[in-house]
């Protein structure tokens, strides 16, 4: 092979490529197995998968789907957990289990929306601001600092009061103070990565800004962004619950974990399950996201 490189047959490349790709796949598997070997991470993943499955298949899983969506059932008001109503019923007699499942739909979907759209807006802006130190970059940085200098929940509350309370507006109101965190994270990463020689090598080959941003910078900042997305899902669920709890988010009769906690608050001493059940659901999912995100971060960090 050394004497004549052209003697290599072109179709043997496919076999070569297959071999290497298989090896790389093995490494990925190994990483995943290491992740799942951590008991806490494994448990968190199970909780998350169950919560997600329950949310997706709510109409088939929930015992009383109509009540989950808000149908009133006044004969069975405030019933404690029983065989008919596993987790009891609320003030309007609705089955708590169904409500929690349907509420999970709103909370999980809302949280995911917030985080993904925040990243969707924040990451490109951060890439641009980090790579360009000119006026456009400076403007983006100042806007980010403006947002970060106020507590985000305060901004979200002000915005949802301005544009009206509701499930959809609450998500928008939360995306607005949320994206600057991604911009700042990405900007910082880019500032260090753009010093790397491979960026200079690409510049030397005459490649333009956008090419370098998307082919060289973006793939190298995805790891911290993915970890931040995972770790942010918990806080996003809490934030949307908070807005619902104070009446600025999801409106009754829709179910939302934060809203359900608020609905149960007047009767917390006698009918505790109305607040505790959605509270626990939120707690478990948020903790699971955090533990899983942390574990993923550790594994990715140790792989460099």
């Amino acid at each position, binding site marked *: 092979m050394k004497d004549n490189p052209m003697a290599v047959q072109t179709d043997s490349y496919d076999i*070569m490529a297959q071999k*290497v790709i298989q090896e790389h796949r093995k490494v990925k598997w190994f990483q995943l197995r290491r992740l799942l070997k951590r008991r806490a991470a494994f448990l968190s993943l199970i909780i998350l998968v169950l919560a997600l499955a329950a949310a997706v298949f709510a109409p088939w899983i929930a015992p009383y789907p109509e009540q989950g969506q808000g149908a009133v059932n006044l004969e069975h008001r405030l019933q404690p957990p029983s065989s008919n109503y596993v987790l009891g019923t609320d003030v309007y007699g609705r089955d708590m289990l169904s409500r929690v499942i349907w509420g999970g739909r709103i909370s999980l979907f809302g949280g995911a929306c917030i985080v993904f759209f925040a990243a969707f807006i924040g990451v490109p802006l951060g890439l641009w601001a980090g790579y360009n130190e000119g006026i456009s970059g400076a403007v983006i940085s100042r806007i980010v600092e403006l947002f970060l200098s106020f507590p985000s929940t305060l901004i979200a509350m002000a915005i949802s009061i301005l544009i009206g309370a509701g499930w959809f507006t609450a998500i928008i109101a939360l995306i607005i103070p949320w994206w600057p965190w991604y911009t700042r994270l990405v900007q910082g990463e880019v500032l260090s990565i753009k010093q790397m*020689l*491979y960026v*200079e*090598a690409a510049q*030397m*080959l*005459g490649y333009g800004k956008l090419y370098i941003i998307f082919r060289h910078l973006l793939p*190298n900042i995805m790891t911290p962004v993915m970890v931040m997305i995972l770790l942010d899902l918990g806080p996003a669920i809490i934030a949307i619950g908070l807005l619902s709890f104070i009446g600025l988010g999801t409106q009754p009769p829709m179910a939302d974990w934060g809203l359900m906690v608020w609905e149960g608050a007047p009767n917390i001493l006698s009918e505790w399950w109305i607040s505790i059940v959605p509270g626990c659901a939120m707690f478990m999912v948020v903790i699971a996201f955090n533990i899983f995100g942390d574990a993923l971060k550790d594994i990715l960090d140790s792989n460099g």
Partner: protein
Amino acid sequence: MNESLISLEQINTWFPNNKSLLGKPRSWIKAVSDVSLNIIEGECLGLVGESGCGKSTLGRAILRLAPLSSGEIRFMGDDIGKLDNKWLKPYRAKMQMVFQDPKASLNPKMTIFKILSEALALNLRVEKENYLEQSVKLLDLVDLRPEHIYRYPHEFSGGQQQRICIARALATDPKFIVFDEATSALDVSVQAQVISLMRELQDKFNLTYLFISHDLSIMEYVCTRVAVMYAGQIIEVQDAGSLFDAPRHPYTKALKNAVPIADPESGKELGILKGEVPKLSDPPTGCHFHPRCNYKEDICSKKSPLVCKTGENSWVRCHFHEKLWKQGILINSKESL
């Protein structure tokens, strides 16, 4: 052989320093000041100097990676000093660079094939369908195996990574390659490999090198001519063979004296220069070296020395080089500077 491939005319690279609130620089870091230099086709020109004297910046300025404040860079006769990125593209293929840290100069998320393809895109002689074939050829040139093309940079050792960088530089079919301390991150045995590879490729493709380093022993081995840089200026250019045996500039002598000798019984003390490296933001007046020079006189602090030819392709910038040369002080003197 005597055609100059690149000629630099009085180039300056200044970086703004200490910006005011409105972004106007209050002072400048003069990383490269008034450098004129010819690089002859087919040679390997060494560039030595202390850390922070501007050698890397000069290398980058030639490739238009560092900003050029003033001056002309002629590459095969064309002035590329003022071209913007779009017009530079055809020249980019002809001039490449190999960096100090091979690990940092390869994108960790790209396979070797992708990395090489990126460079091959500049090579107009290679069609897109042939990238795979060409990549394998390139890897073979640098003694790597074909199956390496689908691997990621972290799966290689430092020496292999540096060879991949050399392959990438060769992919565009260049005439001129800058090696920016390309061997200093590698251990000695690997250094030797990379250097012999460099020389082999130079003969094969008739390349011209600019070899930036602070390792004088490698310099003597690899280069045909050596330029010595001090505080942003080139103070001496000479054939590599005679530069350190018969230096014309006191600083060159000092550099040579600072190299430890691997013989504990030789009894020679290291000639360490007194004083500090001058700040590039505020270099000394006149000759930049005068505050540390043992042979300085009044004129040294007032007038910047002119370029004096000492041979066909060599020159020195020192007011008293003739006197020092005649007295033979720099050649055999045992005293340390």
